[in-house]
């Protein structure tokens, strides 16, 4: 009985490991670690199912002033709209733990997404923080781009001016737009890593 339980536990463990934990953490120019998360509507999304497409990961916390900067100004929605229209998959991921800032009830997430007229493909809930840790996500926003072969080609800030001030957006260089623009034009990404800025991820 004991050994049977042991085998069962081992199988369960190996499943858990293949889900997230057995993988190396994300590194630039390396295969982006796979994950599966459920969105706010209960639909599951697996990164590897999007092979063949560009995927943007956007760490999000609607209560964070840096996130508000890019949503109140519609900067984020414009980027989401522009690139999803070109076939890019855009996944917003919230790694706030239950009870922590930005961990919102599903109705509230839907309401805010509607009010903001967000254009992301899905809002994924990562309340264990496992996927956040897998990607070493530190801030909201923290942006990543994965190419159609599944390689991580950009990690870092949304743009070059580290502030909560909406007026800075048009003066800033948008790194996500630059990297996606280059990649979609078949060029190598010239700025692959930048230092993200924002609120801390509320693990």
């Amino acid at each position, binding site marked *: 009985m004991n050994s049977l339980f042991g085998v069962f536990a081992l199988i369960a463990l190996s499943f858990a490991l293949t889900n997230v934990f057995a993988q190396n953490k*994300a590194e*630039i120019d390396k295969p982006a670690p796979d994950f599966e998360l459920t969105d706010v509507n209960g639909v599951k999304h697996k990164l590897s199912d999007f092979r063949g497409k560009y995927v943007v990961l956007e760490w999000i916390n609607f209560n964070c002033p840096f996130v508000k900067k890019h949503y109140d100004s519609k900067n984020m929605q414009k980027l989401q709209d522009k690139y999803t229209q070109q076939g890019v998959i855009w996944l917003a991921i919230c790694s706030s733990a239950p009870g922590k800032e930005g961990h919102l009830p599903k109705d509230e997430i839907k309401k805010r997404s509607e009010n903001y007229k967000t254009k992301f493909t899905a809002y994924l809930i990562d309340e264990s923080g496992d996927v956040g840790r897998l990607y070493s996500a530190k801030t909201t926003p923290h942006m990543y781009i994965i190419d159609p072969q599944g390689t991580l080609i950009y990690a870092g800030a949304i743009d070059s001016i*580290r502030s909560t001030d909406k007026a800075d957006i048009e003066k800033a260089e948008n790194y996500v737009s630059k990297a996606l623009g280059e990649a979609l034009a078949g060029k190598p990404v010239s700025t692959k890593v930048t230092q993200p800025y924002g609120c801390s991820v*509320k693990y």
Partner: protein
Amino acid sequence: MAESNETARVSLLALHNKVAAGESTWIAVEIEPKEGWHTYWANPGDAGLATTVEWNLPKGISLVDTVWQVPEIIQTDEIISYGYHHKHYIFYKFTVPDNLENQIFEITGVVKWLACKEKCLPGKDTVKIQLISSNRSEINRSFSDIFGNIPVRLDNPLRGEIKDNMLEVKLSGSLNLSEKARIIPYLEGIIDNSAAQSMQGSSLVARLDAFHVEIPKEFKALIVDNEKAYDVVIFL
């Protein structure tokens, strides 16, 4: 985003009541976060934002140096921040032109900060002070009370090397550090803020950030070792 001064109180203090023309002086920005909030050092760490001051300086006055007090290392879950929960100062050094005696210079600073506890709020305030130039200087005695908790500046630069995702800083003979010493660049995105650091022979070794930015050939860093702190320049 509404910016306010709800989360911290800021003011200015001058080293001199009167500054001798042609000499330099210091102005301190005093920042006192409200209970429970913290603001950030020059390198905020994994998240957050450094406090900044945009100076509006009268003609002839120039800013020549900035000194930050030693920050606290603040750990929230796996996120490391460098900042301050309590009253602290950022010191700014200005030079006064030598041909201008008996003048009043008004210096204005727009201070912007991010304050966080669990949530974060941006703050902003405008502060002013007058500098009076004279033929001889007169010290403001209360200033000496605040000139503490400042890193010792080491004149000789240290050699650094990047090896296998590690930064190795070779320490000079005059610098004796304990096993607890930690190096923190003034620039964000170089080292892994949560990783352990170690003394290996006469080198202090720190892990680089998994997504580190391009590392400049020369950069400023703080070394903290128990109660001691040093400002160093590292050459790769």
